[in-house]
């Protein structure tokens, strides 16, 4: 039995890296995930690539295209996770766009998630109002829909947080994913509003890339999510990225311990 999202938050602050599946190959994705676990990652977000990822900055957009050009399919990602499960029981979640899940078929998609031990999913283009699309089917297969709150959410935070599952994904900044030099959002107020509405852990993502930023974020949240900074290493080192990713994850996890 693989671990659940809640387990990721049991050993202090959680470090949550993101990786685009199939960039440069599914075989390498498997290797990257295992290396990240060894380096201290508490939960890994595996991105199923989409042709038109509207919430992503350039780094992850390009990773999605590289992966699709390499022939990655949703079925291939499920097979890779099934292989991965032979070597780890760490909690894993998917990150992808609704059309990928919708077109595959909600029942088939979430039943496959259950089979391979995916415990949650983040769908950035499915806001609170539209989660009726697949919430019940996902829950029926033990897959938690992770809700996002954004700097613009304001009074919506209470509504979203009080009805959330797994963890709250706190979007640190306006715009899309990608490395930022500075995060200016009033995250303290956002976290305060979340804490008033739920006991679920909250992790901050979007824009974080340095250990200093991660440390600062971990002081107010339960976890830190990092995507583009890792995907950049894959873009730069390709098949040889494993040691660089491991070293980076270690430095980030150490910063928030």
């Amino acid at each position, binding site marked *: 039995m693989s671990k659940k999202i809640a387990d990721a938050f049991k050993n202090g602050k959680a470090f949550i890296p993101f990786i685009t599946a199939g960039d440069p190959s599914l075989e390498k994705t498997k290797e990257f995930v295992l290396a990240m676990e060894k380096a201290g990652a508490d939960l890994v977000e595996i991105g199923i690539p*989409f042709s*038109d990822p509207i*919430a992503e900055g350039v780094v992850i957009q390009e990773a999605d295209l590289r992966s699709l050009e390499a022939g990655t399919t949703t079925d291939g990602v499920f097979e890779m996770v099934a292989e991965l499960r032979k070597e780890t029981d760490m909690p894993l979640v998917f990150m992808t766009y609704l059309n*990928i899940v919708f*077109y595959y078929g909600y029942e088939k998609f979430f039943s496959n998630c259950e089979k391979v031990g995916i415990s949650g999913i983040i769908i950035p*283009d499915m806001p609170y109002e*539209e989660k*009726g699309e697949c919430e019940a089917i996902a829950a029926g297969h033990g897959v938690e829909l992770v809700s996002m709150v954004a700097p613009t*959410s304001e009074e919506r935070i209470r509504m979203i947080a009080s009805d959330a599952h797994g963890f709250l994904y706190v979007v640190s900044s306006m*715009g899309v994913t990608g490395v930022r030099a500075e995060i200016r959002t009033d995250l303290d107020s956002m976290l305060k509003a979340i804490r008033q509405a739920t006991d679920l852990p909250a992790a901050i993502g979007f824009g974080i890339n340095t250990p200093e930023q991660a440390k600062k974020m971990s002081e107010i949240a339960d976890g830190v999510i990092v995507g583009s900074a890792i995907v950049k290493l894959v873009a730069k080192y390709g098949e040889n990225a494993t040691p660089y990713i491991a070293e980076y994850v270690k430095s980030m996890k150490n910063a928030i311990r």
Partner: protein
Amino acid sequence: MTNPKGRFGEFGGQYVPETLMNELIHLEQAYEHYKNDPEFVAELDDLMKNYAGRPSLLYEAKKMTADLGGAKIYLKREDLNHTGAHKINNCLGQVLLAKKMGKTRVIAETGAGQHGVATATVAALLDMECEIFMGELDCQRQKLNVYRMELLGAKVHHVKSGSMVLKDAVNEAMREWAGRVEDTHYVLGSVMGPHPFPTIVRDFQAVISKEAREQILEKEGKLPAAVIACVGGGSNAIGAFYHFIPDKEVRLIGCEAAGRGVDTSETAATIATGKMGVFHGMKSLFCQNEYGQIDKVYSISAGLDYPGIGPEHAYLNSIGRAQYVPVTDDEAVDAFEYLSRTEGIIPAVESAHAVAYARKLAPAMSRDQSIIICLSGRGDKDVASIAKYRGVEIDE
């Protein structure tokens, strides 16, 4: 259970990142308020009349009618509007609304450049900052329109992500909007995207059928047998259809860009080849592969090469109220030349798709029936690419 808000049957909805949700809610509230505000309505009417040149003519195409030997052909002349297309109707409405909402900056996507030009035009008139997102390939194909937008004071972003065409321009405009909603309104150019856009754009374009219905009743004393319009996202078509929807005897026909044919991969005919999906904020029909990756689409017309269709069209198709037919590049180019020679009117290559289908339909109909073709835009912008299609190289 899906959220019933902003739905046309099962189509539509609000599939956007959380960052944009409050902005969409504010937009809906502002629109619901201003659409009934006498001052807003009067201002928009004045702009439509005295700036855009409305009402547009309903022109009886006598030579075309005689040549085809069937139903009487009328052209709804949206090509005579300021900026040369129906796009100005929506831009005047949305930019005025944005101004009332206190926004100081507008952004928009554009394919061929018509919506970008219309947005830049209204932004200049209403003193708004303006930035346009246009795919790099489209920028190269439509250099004149890029310069035209810059002339009007807009900044044009050449979008180099993805396949560098219209859908990528929409992606980039949405990303930009998610980064800056405070002072910025996204002037979506078609009846697509998340609620409330399909409704807002339809309402601003519905002036086409409101006028056309009155005009045809005045001229013919009865309703037309059919209304024909080209469909990409579907804004001129929904505008041309809207006030005829309750008139069950009026056939509503949307002409999709089949490109090199619906049995080839070089097509943009969404109703003919697309499947249900969720993209660009809406549930609708999309051209996509077996894993839901959005397809690259193709048409000679940069205004119709969009992989989706507005949710209200998907709905009208699903209930059988409107019918959608594919028209190939060849047929559209023939119609482009035909209308130019027969009536002395050079249509946009988009609108030529509608003219092409009318040429097939009219001869099979009787002389006491009439057809309205929505001539959504003028064809000056297409002259160079049609020449190229015919093997003539022209330096633009």
